[in-house]
């Protein structure tokens, strides 16, 4: 359980990264015209969708990891493979965590081309659509946006030994990001000016509104990202230790 707690804390710290990247969506989603309850429903739906995507990805990767190396019930022959997977996923976490700490340069993300373009187009359309359904859908797709933070915990989920721990890993992470994102939505609603009548006099070209300006200052968020990086490094080290240390000293039981 301690591990999941750590993951949640990492998510909480890392959500300062989320605010920068996805907080804008939350702010734009803003207020529902049918009142505060509807607005809250909309933001809960968004976060539910997002966490469900994480949870699903975690379950699938946990399952795939298990298929690859066999589960805990299997004899020692599989155990070497399991240990190797733990080392591999732990190393990936270290790699991403150290990047968050700014310690070395990462390989450039390759453009996904048509796929990325599709995702962008889909999010754009959903962002403008009203209702809790659209918010849920936005959250679901948002969960698939490429994000190094998510990748780090997916690496852990893959090495967690099964669909259930995999799903729980990602759920813990998702719940960690929940408060900040929900709060962000609240701030966005609070500070958002009332929309003017549409199609009125045009003064100039539309200025580029950026909801990011409402977020905490970058310096804070940078600290948050660093803390998240430190958590990921710690969790990565635990995962590697699970692969390297003798069976009895397995920190999984912590």
């Amino acid at each position: 359980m301690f591990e999941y707690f750590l993951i949640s804390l990492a998510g909480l710290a890392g959500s300062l990264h989320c605010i920068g990247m996805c907080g804008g969506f939350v702010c734009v989603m803003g207020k529902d015209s049918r009142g505060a309850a509807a607005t809250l429903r909309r933001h809960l739906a968004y976060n539910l969708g997002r966490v469900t995507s994480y949870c699903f990805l975690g379950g699938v990767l946990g399952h795939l990891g298990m298929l690859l190396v066999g589960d805990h019930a299997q004899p020692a022959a599989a155990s070497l493979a399991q240990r190797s997977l733990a080392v591999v996923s732990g190393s990936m976490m270290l790699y991403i965590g150290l990047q968050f700490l700014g310690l070395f340069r990462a390989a450039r993300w390759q453009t996904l081309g048509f796929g990325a373009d599709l995702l962008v187009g889909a999010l754009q359309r959903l962002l403008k659509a009203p209702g809790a359904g659209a918010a849920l859908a936005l959250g679901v797709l948002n969960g698939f946006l490429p994000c190094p933070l998510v990748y780090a915990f997916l690496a852990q989920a893959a090495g967690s030994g099964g669909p259930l721990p995999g799903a729980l890993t990602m759920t813990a992470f998702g719940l960690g990001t929940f408060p900040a994102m929900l709060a962000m939505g609240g701030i966005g609603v609070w500070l958002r000016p009332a929309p003017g009548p549409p199609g009125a006099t045009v003064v100039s070209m539309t200025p580029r509104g950026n909801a990011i300006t409402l977020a905490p200052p970058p310096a804070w968020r940078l600290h948050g990202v660093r803390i998240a990086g430190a958590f990921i490094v710690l969790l990565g080290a635990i995962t590697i230790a699970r692969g390297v240390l003798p069976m009895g000293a397995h920190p999984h039981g912590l």
Partner: protein
Amino acid sequence: MKPSSTCSHCLLPTGRLGQQREVNGEALAFCCYGCYLAYQVRHGERDEPEAALLLIRIGVGAFLAMNIMLFSLLLYSGALGDVDGVTARLVHWLLLFLATPLVLLLGGPFVAGAWRAARQGRVGTDTLVSIGVLSAYGFSAMQVWAGSGAVYFDTVTMVLILFTVGRYLEAVGRVRAARSLAPMLAAERAEVRVVHDGTETLQPVREVQPGSIVRVLPGERIAVDGVVIEGRSECNEAILTGRADMLAKAPGAPVLAGSINGTGQLVVRATAAGGVTRWVQISRLVRDALVRKSFLGNTVDRVAAAFVPLVLLLAVGTLWYWASRAPFDQALLTGLAVLVVACPCSMGLAAPLATTLGIGLAAQRGILLRGGGALEKLARVRAVAFDKTGTLTEGRPQVVDIWAHEATEHEVLYRATALAKGSEHPLAKAIAAGGRDRVPNAPVATEVRAHPGAGLSGRVDGEPAAMGSAKFLRGRGERIPAGWAAGNGTTLVYIGWGGRARGAIALADRVLPEAGKVMAALRGRDVQVVLLSGDRETAVARLATKLAVPEWRSGLAPEDKVRELRAWERRYGPVAMVGDGLNDGPVLAAATVGIAVGGATDLARESADVVLPESALEHLPWLLQLSADVNRSIRANLAWALGYNAIALALAVCGWLQPVIAAGLMAGSSLVVVSRSLNARRGHALRAADHVGFAGPASA
């Protein structure tokens, strides 16, 4: 901190993960790829309500589906205890509870489509999906009710999700293919900034009246025909004229609706109502072209329509065969896989995507195609017949040379222009036009008399002067100096005063500078070239020699041209005829592909399949290349989709394909066809740019 070292999206330092990318022509820095995507989401403009609705369905469906998948995964991996235990039964009920809204939500549109088809007595792809999904859902629900056996809600949900995603991909593909046409299609719905009494309001372009004052911002598309009254800028009129260069616009300069404003702000007074510009006309034409089904597209649709009932039979056969040899579950899944994998969705996608792209690319250069059929026919063309006057030549005589004897060239042109200003004869008009800049002070001659078929006489500044053929001047007793001989294809007009011929002006209809290059490019493509002209033999022969065209006919009336075309068609195969739409209408209609050059007048004429703007003959080889590329893209994609379907179908019938994988294959095939078609455009656009040195207009 330098601005470039912070992420343009989340404002964190870009750090070592950072990357430079370009969005909407702006160089920006991002801390990660995700922020780059998120930035695009926030700063792009895309609102299509239908697409949003489909997306909400997909998103909510995915939410339910992910839960179903996760619980199924947990159940079958044994994480929730024994597969036959109480927990398992509870999970089955939970799955049913989650799957029911999903089937209603995502299956609804398919069932509705199947119902519509059934009422018209047809069996469509929607029918296949509906039958497959509903039978698997019904079977699983019965198993839950009975409390025993395996359930297949995960299969049902995945098939539905993947098919809906496939539909979405198709929709996006279509939108994407027509993206370059979007401003054109929206021409009638465009909004303009109308300035009235010092305030500026947005108004639909339809409401713009002649005299309205319209403000155009830098980079905007001009939506009205008018005259600049304030500001300086430069405009790209490629979409109307085919010319890629920027034209300077200062107060007093005319601007055309559809052109793109450059870097300055312009205030324009409309000279025509907003709803009747050529731009709006083009918009309607393109919209018509897009909905016209091409021959190939039609054939594919008919084949697909015949294919669907066969698949249904095959699926029933498969179910029956496997039911007698394996448990019913397995037979049901095999039948479902057959239904799902054989959906000919991607086949119907290849032709419309590629032709839409082709029509859009051509429109960027001002070339209008009357439907995808025109592209298909162009690709088959083996010979091109050209009209001469106005197609390969400028169509009006011009002053090409001046001789003077005991006088200056200026004196000769001065008198010639003065005389010419008094006449309506085409040669006189050409001389008057030629003298407009060089002798702007030339008066209009007095006492001008026309001598039909011979020349003009009159007084210039009080002194008698005459202009006309050598015979006319000799008849007036004037001596012609030796050595003034008409060059090839030129007409000589002599000017005399004071009792002798003192000058001569040579006039010729100039060959378009790009004509030679176009002919060479056509020959390089192994396309035969013919000249069919109504002009005199010598003139046509000379042009043919100059352009190195071996075959030509002269002195042809329109009906002779039609006869000639038929003969060429028998010899070489499909022939395209390039001519002006006014005089050659019937000839253009008789050719395999009629290509009209120039004139806004013939936009609405039905005789031509292709309308080239006035100065766009040079785009002809490019157009042939485009049609060949479009055709290749369609055929390759069709072959690909057919092969893919056939192999997948064979695997499914043998029971080697899970329904979920089958659905994934189908969504994948839609994705492949869409991205292949869209990529074909990129390849073509690059190659084409090299081909004719056309920089391409900024897509605004």
